[in-house]
């Protein structure tokens, strides 16, 4: 193994360690749950990509041929991480509505899209709060 490949692998590994540490600090220090949800995505995207790249470089240099099987982890992770995030965010939103706590501000949408079937797929709790929060005067205007 040449010195160059060793240096590349070492730099990639330390960079992934720094990224994971930043993600853990965000998970610990951010004030709100929906803000905290952003931090672990850093570990499951950027850090996983960097470690996979380091692993591909290392094992390709060891075998003398391109070995890409670690790439499978990235493919699976990039499918599963958004699903986990969306399901967990919906669960947190639902539980917060059940508890009656303060909700994050609703996203601004065009009034035409609000009354139609755009909300049909969203759960019943979201529809009921849409009705109570926005109410009648918005619809008349």
């Amino acid at each position, binding site marked *: 193994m040449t010195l160059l490949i060793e240096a590349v692998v*070492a730099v990639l590994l330390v960079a992934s360690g720094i990224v994971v540490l930043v993600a853990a600090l965000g998970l610990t220090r951010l004030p709100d749950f929906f803000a905290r949800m952003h931090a672990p995505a850093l570990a499951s995207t950027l850090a996983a990509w960097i470690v996979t790249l380091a692993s591909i470089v290392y094992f390709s240099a060891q075998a003398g041929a391109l070995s890409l099987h670690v790439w499978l982890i990235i493919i699976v992770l990039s499918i599963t991480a958004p699903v986990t995030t969306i399901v967990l965010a919906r669960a947190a939103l*639902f539980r917060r509505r059940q508890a009656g706590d303060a909700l994050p501000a609703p996203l601004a949408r065009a009034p035409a899209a609000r009354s139609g079937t755009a909300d049909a797929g969203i759960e019943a709790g979201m529809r009921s709060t849409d009705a109570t929060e926005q109410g009648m005067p918005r619809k008349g205007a």
Partner: protein
Amino acid sequence: MNAMLPWAITVTLVMYVLAMGLGLLRLARGPTAQDRVLALDFLYVVGMLVMLVLAIRYDSSMYFEGAFMMVLFGFVSSVALAKFLLRGEVIE
């Protein structure tokens, strides 16, 4: 100069352990249940990264299967826990 890679692997593993300690802090302290699920998911991801670094450390591609299993089980357990928080039961 030849010891650059073992040094980098040690530094990386120490950083991962620190990150897992912070994740455990959130897991123990987190005010709501969804915080704990988020911390558990984070611990799964960091454990998978530890497996990949150990594959380089011990020069064995057997760790790859372990890391792959950790990705799959982490996904299934996180989704099951989030479903439990949403509905009160996992399979209905």
